[in-house]
């Protein structure tokens, strides 16, 4: 199919992007990597009047470390994050997750900010951001605000972003000494949206886990910080008993939707298996 008619504009500055968003509130869409937007246009699932191409905006690019926080610009390509020594050193969870993000061709164009702003519930990066307690900087002509990842995702493709707002960057705490992380997902094929996925992040003392952060994705309408499962592992030595407690807690708090790819029960089961394996792997990595 062919996309319906739309207008296209490629501003040279962040301010003009924000002005255009304000001017065309609700009728404009941001074009970054286009890896999700272009198919939805061609399938006529979305019919915006205006596409605002942000690829010329240098302020949205780059990856940097400032005061223990890694800043990832909204336009950073997945391939750039994947190859970034900074991300590898300070965001090992994201480095671990990135090879699971689609395929090389998609990663070459797809952007970090695009994945966050789209809020596909089966996407890896929103869940990583939730697990790492990242925050996002949103800008509009009204000003800037910073929103925690754990309250940014509202539902299926729905976020805290107002129609006149642009996601500018993600701010992610760099991994602190003593902490480890692991990412695991299960998909029918490599690069597919996962049937279930788990991000795990904690301080490891011997085999005792502290400050545990488990996030799950792939079944529900948004990534979930698994509070009960995280609490079940908190301060305890990892054992079969704790593993079962974490699995039971996940069973209690996850409420996925079944689809023809996998039922709700299967998705919960997979999340439980993956969570246990992720912690096993995290501990083994020491």
């Amino acid at each position, binding site marked *: 199919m062919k996309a319906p008619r739309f207008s296209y504009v490629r501003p040279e500055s962040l301010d003009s992007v924000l002005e255009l968003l304000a001017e065309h509130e609700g009728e404009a869409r941001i074009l970054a990597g286009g890896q999700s937007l272009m198919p939805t246009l061609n399938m006529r699932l979305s019919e915006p009047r205006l596409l605002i191409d942000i690829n010329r905006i240098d302020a949205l690019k780059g990856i940097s470390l400032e005061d223990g926080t890694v800043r990832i610009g909204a336009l950073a390509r997945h391939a750039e994050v994947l190859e970034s020594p900074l991300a590898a050193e300070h965001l090992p969870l994201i480095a671990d997750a990135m090879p699971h993000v689609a395929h090389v061709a998609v990663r070459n164009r797809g952007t970090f900010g695009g994945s966050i702003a789209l809020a596909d519930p089966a996407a890896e990066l929103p869940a990583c951001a939730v697990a790492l307690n990242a925050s996002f900087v949103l800008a509009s002509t009204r000003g800037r605000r910073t929103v925690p990842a754990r309250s940014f995702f509202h539902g299926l493709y729905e976020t805290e972003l107002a129609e006149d707002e642009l996601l500018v960057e993600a701010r992610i705490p760099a991994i602190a000494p003593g902490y480890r992380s692991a990412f695991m997902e299960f998909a029918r094929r490599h690069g*597919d949206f996962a049937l279930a996925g788990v991000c795990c992040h904690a301080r490891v003392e011997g085999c005792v886990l502290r400050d545990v952060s488990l996030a799950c994705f792939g079944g529900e309408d948004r990534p979930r910080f698994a509070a009960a499962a995280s609490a079940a592992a908190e301060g305890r030595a990892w054992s079969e008993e704790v593993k079962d407690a974490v699995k039971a807690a996940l069973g209690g708090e996850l409420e996925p939707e079944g689809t023809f790819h*996998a039922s709700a029960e299967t998705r919960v089961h997979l999340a439980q298996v993956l969570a246990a394996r992720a912690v096993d792997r995290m501990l083994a990595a020491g």
Partner: protein
Amino acid sequence: MTDRPEAAGRPLPRGSARRLAAGRGRYADDLRFPGLLHLAFVRSPHAHARIVKIDPAPALAAVPAAKVFTGADIAAVCTPWQGKMDHLPTLVSPPQHAVAVDRAVWQGEPVAAVAAASRALAEDAAAAVAVEWEPLPAAAVRDRTLDADAAPAHPELGGNLAYAAAIRAGDPEAALAGSAHVVEACFSFARHTGVPLEPRTVIADYDPGEGRLTVHGSHQAPWHQQDTLSRHLGIPEHLVRVVTPDIGGGFGIKLHIYGEEIAVSAVSRILGRPVKYTADRLESFISDIQARDQRVEARMGVDADGAIRGLSVDALSSFGAFASYGRAPVNEGMMTISMAGGPYANGHYEGRLRIAFQNKPPSGMYRAVGQPIACAVTEQLLDRAAHAAGIDPVEMRRRNYWAEDAFPLRTPGGIAMDRLSLRQCLDRLVAMMGYDALRAEQAALRRSGVYRGIGVATFLEMTAIGAERYGPAGARISTQDGATVRLEPSGRVRCVTSVIEIGQGTLSALAQIVADRLGVAPEDVGVVGGDTALAPYGGGAWASRGLTIGGEAAWRAAEGLRANILELAGSILQADPAGLDLAGGAVCDRATGETRITLAEIGRIGHFRQDTLPPGVQPELAVTRHYAPDDVPFALANGVQGSSLEVDAETGGVRLLGHWVVEDCGRIVNPLLVEEQIRGGVVQGIGGALFEECRYDEHGQLLNGSLADYLVPMAAELPDIHVGHVETPLRGTALGAKGAGEAGTVGAPAAVLLAVNDALRPLGAQVSSLPITPEAVLNAIAAAA
């Protein structure tokens, strides 16, 4: 007489590879036509609905220059067709219009065609056409379509049964009753489709001045298209020409007659302008033919020593909304019951088939037609029987193959068999895959909770089907192919063939065959095809027939030209042609090898200097020959496949570790081409085993109509595929080649299914539905616990 090895048999890279890899392929969608209009279709959103009213006004308001054609508008210039077979009078299928008239019978059936100056405008207009619908209950659940209270796919037929057949040999009931072990299973094979990279595309250009229709399209059987267009549009056949440029894969999908493609010609006829339609991927999933979709209940009985005593197979197959037109629509089901048990000695067999209509896209021939089902059913039962009898699965097969001296024979399923190489292939495969080492490793890993599985499956591949199968059906499909081989004035050679190249590289293999007969290098033979006006009449690309039939025709045409060249050389040299030979691009002395005259000189004299020849000598430097299989109904290839994999018992995931194939396609002309056919076929078979399924809800709505949700196998999931060969030349042909295009697809689902169940056996679990999803594996394990 030549120091150059024969070209046939050598692994030469195919000639078109460099061009296609460099992006110089020219597919139908790349072609440009002045004054072209684009067609888009309004499609039924319902699986079954009455069309109350179609109002084009909103479309014309949106795009004033658009033209809207309803089913009735198209029917005014194009007669409907009916998927019947003359020799099967009980087969029913209602008339099918190019564009639905009054009633739509599957979700996605075209109900109006809209022409505009660009595809985007045509889509804008099509989206605005107002259709008033009266939804009807749909027949959409295969296993319930024959229930008494099932909704009818076609109310006027009075039921959903389209065809029923039975095959019987010996006394299967008594044989099963007297068996030491009886194993049974109910299998399900999902509905899936072929997903060629290039979607279906057609451009029709009707010239009202000459009354001539020229069609460029991505089609595997352009002669079949020519015949259909001529008869249903009422254009004399000699004024219909179908040209196939580069084709980006077919797998059977592009063999069929599609309403959209015929409608393109009808609209061109009405408007007198070139008109084009390219299916996009979303349309392909709701309009390309679909295949498989069978439930099979089967039982096998064996003696205490493992010998098969009897087999019973009961299959429920599906046509979708119509029996596909002009071919052999019953074959997906008939191949299941006629090929089941094929490789194994057995006298007591019962096969039963019912085919039902559903409100889904028409089913059709997809790579390997029914044979993967027959193979998976047979091989899985044999594995279970081996387990029941306590016999190793490889030994089980060796004990049960037809005896070497039993050939030629006709199986209880009715399949004529000449010499096969079953044991040779099995021995070769066992050595190649390191079967004993894999078994030892499997046992060791099981002790540490790792579930590995090994599957070994014997397959048969029916190739190069002759007229005996299509002729009596009244199908206007030629099982013959032809070739014209011509010596050019430069001494180079040109071959014009009816073989259709769809990505297999067959044309390169034809060059190798012709080169050997004429003593030139393969790069000195130019091969072209794909034009029904210019090439000899033929069949096209299906049933793995290109080399067996088209190759034989080329061989014979080259032989004919060889004789003509030697005769002409004899006149020029005043020598006996019997003492001459062709080698190294020249005519040489048969006894000494000494060059007597070059082919370039023969070409020069033959084409330009006839005045120098003795009176009465007419050079004939082009020869056309045709070939259709005569003394056998088809060429039966055989082989064995092996799969090694690991099942993750916690996630239900299957990781493929290795795949092996030993196949016998008779004489191999180009091992590179054969091995890539085998590998590609295996990949599609693995798709059927683990991934591919057209998922419909109970109302006949497709749930996964995009490549995001319809999972095709991709490189990351695939193991190395190792290929070995045994060559048993086909008797009755000079070339001796059997087909190889479907072998991989026939055997791979069985090998993978067997290996998964081999891995699951210690858990007490088994699966018998394809594709084998992680959820199905988890459910099987949970059910066994």
